[in-house]
Each structure stands twice: as C-alpha cells, then as structure tokens.
C-alpha cells in the first residue's frame, strides 16, 4: 500500500502558506480537525480563505484562527455562534460569503469528483443567485454553482490507516468525507490510527486515494456546543 502516514503535525501541514484557501471539515464543533487548527494557530499563517460550514465559537474551532486575525475570508452556511466573527465582519476585516449548506457540500463533492459546475435549485430567486447563471430544467429554475478550488483540506476522522483509508463516527462525519480529495492536498487527522488491513474494505467511508497525508491526532477536546439531556424517569 502507498504510505500516507506522516510522523507529526509539522509534516502534516508542510507547505501551508499565507493567503492559501483551506477547507476544514466539521459541523459546528462536531468533527473538526482540532490538531490542524491548533497548528495553524501556532504557525500564525495569515490571510487565509477558509471554507467551512461554520466558524467555530469564540474560543474554540475556527474561532481560534479568528482571534489571531488569520482569516481574511470565510465561506460558510451558518456563522451564528461567534462574537469575534461578528466584530471582524462588521469592521470589514473579514469577508464573509454565505452560501446554502447543500451547495457548500456539493461544491466540495464537485471538486473531489472532477465536475466543474452543477445546477442546483437552492437559492434561486434570492440574493445568493445574483450574478449567477440561472436556467430552467423541466419547468423548474436552477442556479449554476462551481466546484471549489482549495489548496488544503483538513479533515478529521475516527479511524484511519496509513494507506489513508478513513472511517468516520456518527454526525462527526458531515463535510469531512466530501472535502477529501477536494483540495490539492488532503490532510486527515484521526483519533485512532490502525494497522493497514485492520479496516474492513467494505466499511471504509473514504478510500485512501482521496487522502495525501494522515496522522494520529492528540488531545481531542470534542467540545459540545449544546448539551441537551432528558431526565431519567
């Protein structure tokens, strides 16, 4: 098998530079690449354009990059949980492109799958479609949306092997599989790096061909945004 394992986080992020476009998996704080974000903070790369469904909270997730003013532009579908985000957006320090969540997912998948563009009904007749080509198919209107073009994709998986094969857990899957192979270099961090052959080939969510680098992550906090519980009867 082709070996994708890198020894440490420094190697995993080799080549990340100022002003690059990055994809980051996760929905809210669920399934985010915590180790990669921590290293991006440490390196203090600037001028980043980030594609991620959300923007973290003030003191966790992408919020950590916002604190250091490392992000110039966010492409997201929902950014509601972050005061620092709001400040930078209102002050004009942060450019924000809000797009429908399904469009975000499919623009990733289109990049992964080699489709330059696709027609989706989402956003037709709204400001999201302004300046974009629209077109009728079978009497319904659609908007032409384009594949993303990113330098790095940072994803987080549950298990992985050094061939780059990935398995995700629960709703921590979300955008992570769609971002694999959707950027020039895909870096996967995993909670558990297992030996090649330990994953059932039938149960692999993302084949290693979509992943360029993989490493064993550390110290996962996996913070819960809305801890909701019910009482035992």
């Amino acid at each position, binding site marked *: 098998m082709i070996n994708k394992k890198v020894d440490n986080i420094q190697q995993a992020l080799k080549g990340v530079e100022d002003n690059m476009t990055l994809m980051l998996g996760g929905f809210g704080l669920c399934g985010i690449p915590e180790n990669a974000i921590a290293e991006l903070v440490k390196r203090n790369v600037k001028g980043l354009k980030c594609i991620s469904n959300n923007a973290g909270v003030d003191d966790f997730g992408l919020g950590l990059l916002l604190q250091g003013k490392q992000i110039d532009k966010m492409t997201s579908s929902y950014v509601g949980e972050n005061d620092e985000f709001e400040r930078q957006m209102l002050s004009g320090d942060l450019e924000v492109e809000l797009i429908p*969540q399904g469009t975000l*997912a499919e623009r990733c998948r289109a990049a992964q799958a080699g489709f330059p563009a696709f027609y989706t009904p989402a956003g037709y007749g709204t400001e999201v479609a302004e300046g974009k080509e629209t077109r009728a198919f079978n009497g319904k209107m659609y908007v032409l949306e384009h594949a993303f073009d990113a330098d790095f994709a940072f994803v987080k998986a549950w298990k992985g092997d050094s061939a780059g094969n990935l398995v995700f857990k629960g709703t921590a899957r*979300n955008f*992570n599989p769609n971002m694999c192979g959707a950027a020039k270099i895909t870096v996967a961090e995993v909670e558990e790096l297992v030996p090649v052959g330990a994953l059932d080939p039938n149960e692999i969510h993302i084949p290693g061909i979509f992943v360029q680098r993989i490493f064993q992550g550390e110290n996962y906090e996996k913070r819960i945004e*809305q801890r909701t*519980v019910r009482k035992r009867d």
Partner: protein
Amino acid sequence: MLDKNGIAKRIAKEVQDGYYVNLGIGIPTLVANFVRDDIEVEFQSENGVLGMGPFPFEGEEDADIINAGKQTITTLDGASFFDSATSFSMIRGKHVDLTILGAMEVAENGDIANWKIPGRMVKGMGGAMDLVASAENIIVAMMHTNKRGESKLLKSCSLPLTGVNCVKKIVTNLAVLEVTGDGFKLLERAPDVTVEAIQKATEGNLIIEGDIPEMVI
C-alpha cells in the same frame, strides 16, 4: 390563540404515517413531541442523521452525535449516519416528505424570508435555502405577527428571500392557512380567535370561503 406548543401540536397533525420529516430550529423542533404514537415517522437532520431519537440521558451525551441545532441527541434502531452531500441528496432529491420551518415573512405567492435582516448580524441560511427550494411539502410555523404587531403574512416579502413560491401551508398562533397562489386561504381558526382578528393581522390577500372551523388539536 395558540402558544408555541399549540402551534407545534397542530402541525403534528399534518405528519402522516411513513413520512420522513426535517424540522427546523424553534417551534418546528417542538413538533416531534406531539406526533402520534401509532404512526411511523423518521426525523432527518441535515448534518447527517436519519432516525433521530430523544435527547440522551444525562451523562450519556456523545459529542459525535448531534442534530443541526448542535444539540446532543440519540438515535433509534434503524438510524443511519451519512455525509453532508448525501444529506442534501435526500433533501434536494425530494426524499424528505415534509419540511417544517420558521419564517420572518411569507408572501401570498409562497415566497419565504427567514434568514436575513438588513442592518443586523446575518448568521446565514444554513440548510434552509436547499430545503425550501426542494421540498414539495413545506409548512411554516410562526407567529402571525411580529413583535411590533405587524403582519408576517404579506402581499410580498420585504426582507431578502430564502426561497420563492415554495410555502404550501402556514400554521400560526391564530390560524391554519393554505398558500394558493391567489392569496392565503383560511382553513382553520385557533380557539377563540375570530375571522375578523385574523383578517386584521393579515396584510396579504386573505381568502375566506364559507364557515371557517375552529382547529381541533
């Protein structure tokens, strides 16, 4: 006049056996509490789960199992997890039978605005634009008027749109209405609410045909 739970209870009656349902945040979330026990319904959350169950017992929360509102949840037997592209394949591909969501404004042609107020911090549309552009069966759950007492059922929306010509039915604290294309057709009155009160609270064209029955909840 209904409270939020009352609106949710009335909408729950629209949920039929065998439906896959996507619930928005707010009043729609409450609908799950009132669906009849004798029908089979599955709840989809666009972050990647089908077959959502109740909230977990304290101490059993799993950070990797949440709904689109970022709340910890559980799953029922027969549930499945999937990626975001697949989730929106379910939505865009019309596999979800019923979408229930809130709104700031609905127009008499079925336009909906629920994501942006100019001048205020915009949080984003999340999955709402995909849902309203795709679903064939959309019910809006909302108060009939806003905090300033102004109608939310309008001739045309004043706020930036989330989707066009898409809302089919509206359940408010005052009434159940069908969006017909010609206007809002009044189907039911909330208990102790007169047709006149509904008329007064509705800016868009209100279609009143015959006697309007009171809701049975």
